């Protein structure tokens, strides 16, 4: 198998996550023909390949040209991680015009190369994607499971459960009336974090991570992206499902629940998905009101 690994705008954490597979990844490298990998080898051109593993979002002009080159040359294109699949944390930058991102960081406003696009977008806004392997970065078991299926020619399995399915915490007794930030109080062991008032996205996030964060006592940030249910059903969403869950358990109206969440936090529910055009089109979600409006005609995503 001719293998390429490519990064667009990213933190390289998905390559590191693959290296974290240790000997398993070493065996994949040894067993395949690595024809391009800017992190691991010195090939300067992307040749024809069977599989391209792509990390990172599309933030600048160079990302666009590199992405098109990868798509042209690969039989199977896999987005590794949440940046390439949904835009990832850098998608939070869509709350501001690109020029403002730039002005905040640099005093010297001279144009640098390559120019930023008006808005960050995930890979499938530009080219077709064959498989999505999500997570920031994808959990080891998800990665190794995917590679095993791919190498043995099987259709990769989809995990359609939420993180809660793997979480040992349970809803016990009454729901906390007020929301709280993690630093305000040490969470109680064994009890659902959403119930304790933390914004835990476990119930709206795709499983596969063995619920590592809530198990460690940290609310789920939603790094694997929305559950299958949310993806397939337009009447669901990340924000609206959390709103409804609180409204149901607390016996308050949906409107009241919305107000409370809006007051408590704005972008915290969309760390990883703010740039995803697919959530933006859902009226019940809040994404649309958070992002800075720009014309992105050629992608047709506005």
């Amino acid at each position, binding site marked *: 198998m001719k293998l390429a690994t490519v990064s667009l*705008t*990213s*933190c*390289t*954490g998905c*390559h*590191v*996550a693959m*290296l*974290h597979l*240790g*000997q398993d990844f*070493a065996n994949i*490298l*040894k067993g395949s023909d*690595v024809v391009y990998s*800017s*992190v*691991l*080898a*010195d090939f*300067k051109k*992307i040749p024809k390949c069977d599989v391209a593993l792509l990390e990172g979002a599309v*933030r*600048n002009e*160079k*990302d666009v040209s*590199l992405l098109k*080159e990868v798509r042209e040359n690969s039989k199977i294109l896999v987005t590794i991680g949440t940046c390439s699949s949904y835009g*990832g944390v*850098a998608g*939070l*930058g869509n709350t*501001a015009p690109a020029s*403002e*991102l730039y002005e*905040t*960081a*640099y*005093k*010297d406003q001279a*144009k*640098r190369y*390559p120019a*930023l696009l008006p808005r960050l977008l995930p890979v499938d806004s530009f080219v077709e994607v064959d498989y999505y392997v999500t997570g920031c970065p994808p959990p080891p078991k998800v990665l190794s499971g995917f590679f095993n299926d791919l190498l043995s020619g099987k259709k990769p399995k989809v995990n359609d459960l939420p993180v809660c399915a793997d979480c040992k915490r349970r809803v016990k007794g009454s729901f906390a009336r007020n929301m709280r*930030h993690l*630093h*305000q*109080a*040490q969470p109680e062991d064994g009890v659902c974090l959403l119930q304790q008032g933390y914004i835990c996205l476990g119930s709206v996030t795709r499983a596969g991570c063995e619920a*590592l*964060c809530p*198990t*460690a*006592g*940290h609310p789920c940030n939603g*790094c694997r992206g929305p559950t299958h249910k949310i993806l397939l059903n337009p009447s669901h969403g990340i924000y609206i499902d959390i709103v409804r869950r609180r409204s149901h358990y607390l016996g308050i109206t949906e409107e009241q629940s919305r107000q409370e969440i809006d007051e408590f*936090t704005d*972008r915290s529910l969309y*760390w990883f998905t703010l740039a995803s055009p697919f959530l933006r089109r859902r009226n019940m979600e809040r994404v649309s009101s958070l992002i800075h409006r720009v014309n992105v005609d050629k992608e047709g995503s506005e």
Partner: protein
Amino acid sequence: MMPDEIVISPVTRIEGHAEITVELGDDGRAKGARFHVHNFRGFERFLEGMPADDLPQLTCRICGICYSAHGLASVKAIESAWGIKPSPEARKVRELIFFGQYIESHALSLAVLSLPDFIYPGQGPEKRNIVNLLKTHEDVAKKLIDLRQSGSMITRVVGGRPVHPVNFVPGGVVRVPTPEERKELLKGLEGKDAVLVGLWNILKEVLLKNPEFMSLGATETHYLAMNDEGKIAFYDGHLSIMTPDGKIKETFPPEDYFKHVAEEEHAFSYMKFPVLVTGEKFRVGPLARVNIAKLCGTPKADEILSEAREIVGFPTNTTMAYHVARLIETVYSWEKAVELLNDDDVSSPKALFAGIPAKAGRGIGIVEAPRGVLVHQYEFGDTGRLIKANFVVATQHNNHAINDGLSATARELITSPKVPEEILNRLEMIARAYDPCLACATHAIGVRPFTIELVGPDGKTIRRWERNGRV
């Protein structure tokens, strides 16, 4: 027509996206070289308004290699803004995560990315990588991959997650490892000291005895590093400035960082150029730390340090000595990780944070990331929402030195526009010595390629080497 520049793009076997451009004179000889960093994401702007407890998690994502360094700098900056201090037990848990980070990050840079340069001198790009090392020296390659893995398991277990760990909360940690987990991690570290000694012996043969490699990227600079009364320190300590001839010029508390360092900007790169306020260029990272420290403070690391002093002569300006310093620090991190894993304090509930309300304030958090001094600076409003963030990232500090070293070597090795691939790789080796972390280095605005460009006297590009294939 004579080409006027050579571009190497993308620079490979580094973290992030960059290009090198080499400028050529009328005679076709290199006049100088520049390091261009291309990705920018804009963290400073989009973090504004975020609640404080989101910051350690979000800033981890500035870098997929030194996530724990960002998490720790972030949580220290919040604690500095709110005037709280974690317990000694919490500090130990954080340091343990950090030593795990050092083992994985240094092993990645040294063994996975750079070692193939030294093992396969003069061989083509298809040979010069870890994949080939797995084929020709499987036993060595697998041991090195296991070494990396032993550090990343510490991140996984103590940090709570394999990449972008979650165990950073203002005031302490959210979870402590159980004694059983510590035992398991100790088992993972077993024998890795011998692997490191083996790697040191390999480096002595393939790098230190190769004067062509050791002279790459030569430049004389000042040095800036954290230390604890002359001993290496990663998590906390004083900052010291050393002159190129090895004298400590000044030592000051980390809060005074901005009294000593200023930033320059140049439009050819998204990466800024810090200098000392007195005007001198300086370097950070393993070489700076080992130069400034008199001792590591652990026996095995100090043994290699004293041997390395004989051969390389710390303090030294030799750029390739970064790799030697990196090895010494990995040994030190291994010893400290073993020490902490045997310490019951690490499993003590006293390490857990106590709930604290958010408040307004300004704070600065400084740690030594594997690549050097890392600064997070925050300002919070009354509700604990972020008003302003500023980052100065390790690799930025080395920006001047990378550019100067590339120029010096390009002038020495490039005498005509027809340059063999191997010589261009020498330029990339200079960048790799610094282990540049470019996702971090663009102030998180999202850097892209690292290209090498050969530029002619009229400023026109003669040749570009690019990672994405434009030649």
